[in-house]
């Protein structure tokens, strides 16, 4: 569990309030925190009420409060993309976004890709093409590749390389990742 992120306990809402002194002074938009603040996150089609401090990143809230540990934190500064998730339809680094600023936007994590007990085609292609070694960067890479295919069912090699250009993989799986997605792009009938 990360500091500042925890599951939402029943009846604790009353403890969490805005700072009345600050709000009186500004007579403006509410001042929240620095203690935990109630928010609602929409993750993988489910709605989760949570308590988070303003400093809690989305990656920390996902992994800590919600137990969605498929999203990995590696560099924690937006330089490796291991923590990639979808914010609505955009791939973003969840370590570089605060949970409190997500608002009504939909979050999709690696746990939300499989549907009806079946892996997402990108996950199947990663397995078929041995695009995984240690696996730490893999959830992020899968999120980038699935987002690419959602917007462009038949990407070429250069487009795939651009789509995964933010990811660091110390095992060097890049060529197998590109092969996996190229195979998928060719196989798609539409």
């Amino acid at each position: 569990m990360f500091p500042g992120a925890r599951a939402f306990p029943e009846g604790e809402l009353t403890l969490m309030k805005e700072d009345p002194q600050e709000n009186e002074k500004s007579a403006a938009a509410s001042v929240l925190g620095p203690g935990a603040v109630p928010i609602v996150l929409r993750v993988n089609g489910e709605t989760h009420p949570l308590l988070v401090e303003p400093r809690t990143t989305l990656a920390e809230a996902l992994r800590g409060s919600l137990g969605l540990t498929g999203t990995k934190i590696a560099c924690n500064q937006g330089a490796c993309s291991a923590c990639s998730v979808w914010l609505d339809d955009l791939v973003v680094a969840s370590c570089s976004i605060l949970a409190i600023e997500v608002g009504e936007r939909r979050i999709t994590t690696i746990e939300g890709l499989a549907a009806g007990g079946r892996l997402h085609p990108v996950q199947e292609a990663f397995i078929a093409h041995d695009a995984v070694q240690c696996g730490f960067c893999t959830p992020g890479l899968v999120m980038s590749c699935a987002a690419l295919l959602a917007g462009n069912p038949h990407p070429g090699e250069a487009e795939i390389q651009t789509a995964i250009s933010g990811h660091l993989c110390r095992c060097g799986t890049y060529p197998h990742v590109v092969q996996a997605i190229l195979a998928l792009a060719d196989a798609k009938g539409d």
Partner: protein
Amino acid sequence: MEAFQWQQARSPAEAAALVTQTTAEAMLTLQGTPSAQQAILVKAGGVDMLDLMKEGLVNPRRLVDISRLAELQGISREGDDSLRIGALTTLAQIAAHPGLRQSHAALAQAAAMAASPQIRNRATLGGNLLQRPRCWYLRSAAHHCLRKGGGHCFAFAGDNRYHAIFANHGCAIVHPSTPATALLAFHAQVELLHPQGQRRQVPLEDFFVLPEADMHRENILAAGEILTAVWLPPQIQTNRSIYLQVAEREAFDWPLAAVAVVVDLDAAGLCQRASIVLGAVAPAPWRARQAEALLTGATINGKTAEAAGEAALAGATPLAQNAYKLPLLATLVRRAVLAAAALPQDPRAS
């Protein structure tokens, strides 16, 4: 990251009234004292702000979030054919904008080469222009450097391979913005909203501050001012532009050297105007005036492009470890001038 308060601004004016310091001011500390948790700072995409906060380089009492303000988003064509880019427009939106890719190709190219897809989806143009430099001594909490209010620049005797080769007296940061190189080549202006409600437009050239003028800031933004938009003046229809950079990694990396070139050619192929701006080599985007003068009124060919590349180096004062940037720049300028004029690269010269 230290705890802080959160406030979502409902308008740019409200944010301007709430914010007490610029990020640069909040990073200034006396020798050896940790930064006090007093400032109320503005946050847009938050990419750089969260980095600085995680490193403990800035420790605000409160963040005022402007990232959801609709009036600061988007690209619009204004009455006189100027383009207005809202400060919260993301680098990804700029890179993908069909109109910009036509009329301001170098800007779209520069935005596409900055950072990673994940960061481009969040990083705003305003935040990109206002991010703090990437000098590793500035970014290290263990080094109390000149730019943070200390008494010493560590780069001169230290590892200065990525530092400035122009205007590097006293402090040798390079300006970290990739789009800024292209924006300056298009003579862009920034729109600033004052806490009292006035708006002013400042040419980008006058917005940036060199170390010799003030070591503690990269721009003239005042406390409480909000950068609300970037304006691009109308372009001559026939303008051609290109942005090129060299970096250690092609996938995504900070450039070692970069150039944006805009040329206006007349029907006879004569260069009416040349705008040549260098990136990652000076504390601000660096206009190569001698190279511009050399091309103005000239025919662009392999010879004049090569001469422009050499002229772009005028006034350089490289440090112990970064003289390698000189040939990189000369080559980039030559290639960019030829490409902007849609001429083939001369294989004998490369």
